[in-house]
């Protein structure tokens, strides 16, 4: 079990970690989710012992390890870039943590071969890293992390530089390898979709702070605040400032009658958040809010359309599960069921979660 207690780290006026309190259990998969520069890598470096926190404490299984040198910790780390020792061949690369730890030669041989077999790089043991493909290089880095049997495994966007097929393949396999070892597995990613596919627990980071930590699915469905909802939405969350008074929602001349829970919200200013897939191009219910705007871009994938449009100065995006041939500069209307709104107070805290999200739990 790894505990981070009030960890702070500032470098040159830039906040890398701010009052971080986290607790990761052994044998679990934990995801650090946040955009680039949100502090994921910094936090991992602190956990690995490569950097020292300015204040705060790190505990492993109850023992303080804050000042312990990285060499003394049983940690493994895999980077986004494929980091291997270029001068050693694949076998020696995998064997290197064991050699340093003075593991008997017979054991090294066996463990290296096991790890190589698991990560499907057995045929290349004699090759040098530069003679491997990108996917194989990352598998090699993972094998080196795996063979060490570390108690804490840090994977810093390990699949970001791989092509999508390899990514999907490894994403399914990876957690299994390390979970079997009973390690605390920490996985940093910028992609909400990847976090949801991996499952486990997710900590959402924003400018060095943990904004929410919990089971991945529930963090996604029940964000505590606007920052989490924004970070955990791909394509981006649509937001608008609205005013609620007497059970009516007012937005830019739109007046919508609220029912059920939303009607009970106190009068005042709110920010609403709408998931892109809750925007529809036709009216589904009498209470639907209608928003019109000019189409900026329409991205069409194989089976979906991402329609970006401008609603009173804000960029909104709608995810439609069919191919829509709408050209830029057309004016379109979108319809949203107010029951799909997330309501946030002006300070960003959640005021009301859509019922549809609550029910999944």
């Amino acid at each position, binding site marked *: 079990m790894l505990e981070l207690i009030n960890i702070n780290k500032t470098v040159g006026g830039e906040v890398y970690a701010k009052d971080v309190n986290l607790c990761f259990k052994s044998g679990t998969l934990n995801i650090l989710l946040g955009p680039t520069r949100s502090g994921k890598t910094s936090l991992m470096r602190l956990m690995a012992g490569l950097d020292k926190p300015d204040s705060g404490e790190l505990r492993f299984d109850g023992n303080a390890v804050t000042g312990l040198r990285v060499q003394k910790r049983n940690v493994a780390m895999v980077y986004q870039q494929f*980091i291997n020792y270029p*001068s050693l061949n694949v076998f020696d690369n995998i064997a290197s943590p064991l050699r340093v730890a003075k593991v008997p030669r017979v054991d090294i041989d066996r463990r290296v071969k096991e790890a190589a077999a698991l990560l499907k790089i057995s045929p290349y043991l004699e090759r040098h890293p530069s003679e491997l493909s990108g996917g194989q290089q990352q598998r090699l880095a993972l094998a080196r992390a795996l063979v060490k049997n570390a108690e804490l495994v840090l994977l810093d966007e390990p699949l970001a530089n791989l092509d999508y097929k390899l990514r999907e393949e490894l994403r399914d396999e990876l957690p299994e390898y390390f979970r079997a070892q009973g390690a605390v597995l920490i996985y940093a990613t910028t992609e909400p979709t990847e976090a949801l596919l991996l499952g486990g627990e997710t900590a959402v980071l924003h400018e060095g702070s943990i904004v929410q930590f919990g089971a991945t699915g529930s963090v996604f469905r029940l964000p505590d605040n606007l920052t989490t909802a924004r970070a955990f939405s791909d394509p981006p969350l649509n937001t608008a400032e609205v005013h609620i008074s007497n059970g009516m929602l007012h937005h830019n001349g739109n007046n919508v009658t609220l029912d059920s829970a939303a009607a009970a919200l106190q009068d005042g200013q709110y920010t609403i958040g709408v998931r892109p897939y809750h925007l529809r191009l036709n009216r589904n219910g009498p209470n639907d809010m209608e928003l019109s705007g000019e189409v900026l871009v329409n991205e069409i994938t194989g089976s979906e359309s991402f329609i970006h449009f401008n609603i009173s100065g804000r960029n909104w995006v709608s995810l439609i599960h069919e191919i829509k041939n709408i050209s830029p500069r057309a004016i379109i209307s979108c319809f949203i069921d107010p029951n799909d709104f997330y309501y946030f107070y002006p300070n960003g805290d959640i005021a009301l979660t859509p019922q549809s999200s609550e029910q999944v739990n």
Partner: protein
Amino acid sequence: MRANPTSKGIRASNVPWRYIVPALYILFLMVPLYWLLNMSFKTNQEILSTFSLWPQQFTLENYLLILSDPSWYNGYINSTIYVVLNTVISLAVALPAAYAFSRYRFLGDKHLFFWLLTNRMAPPAVFVLPFFQLYSAFGLIDTHIAVALAHCLFNVPLAVWILEGSMSGIPREIDETAYIDGYSFPQFFFKLFAPLIGSGIGIAAFFCFMFSWVELLIARTLTVTEAKPIAAVMTRTVSASGVDWGVLTAAGALTIIPGAVVIYFVRNHIAKGFALGRV
């Protein structure tokens, strides 16, 4: 079918030119060297009396004299000793310095790095007098270590510059991965890092060797007899019977050999080393 006249024209007129220019260039470069070798196999009498493109009376006397007379061959031994010493010291100092410059940010690091290079901009003559006084004060005059240390003045900055470039080409994450794997700093540096910057080390050693080998002013000032370098010996060949041209050119030819040997060893790394070493 007729051959395309245009392409034929290009071939006819361009191909010779493509070779002529470099051929002429190499010819001009090689002529003085050839003349040096040519003279070194002649007798003094032939050098002074006739103009011949190759030795009329081929002789190895000049070389035999150098290889048998201690006042000559000791010059080579002395030069070799302080050059090797200097290369070792320069690298031993420059490796940690370059690692610091490449891996850590500290107050004034960029200024310090540039200041190192400015040491190369001052002519060695500027340093000769202070060096002479200081080395005399410490009783180091006429020792190999004196010259080796003095040459660090311009070799350490150069080595730091080259090594920093080649170290910065290696991602930091390799260092960190090694520490995470459990390597201590010395283990990491010598087992994993040194092979990666091998070309850089080779090139830095090569330049240290060459600059120390060809440097004359400081080496001559700091030595008397015991550590007198070959270049200094060569400047003192005017005897009662005039200049001993044959021996002098033979010494010159022998002086080129160490450089040629060193270049042979680093020939595969030199392009890589230059690119990484931003020289």
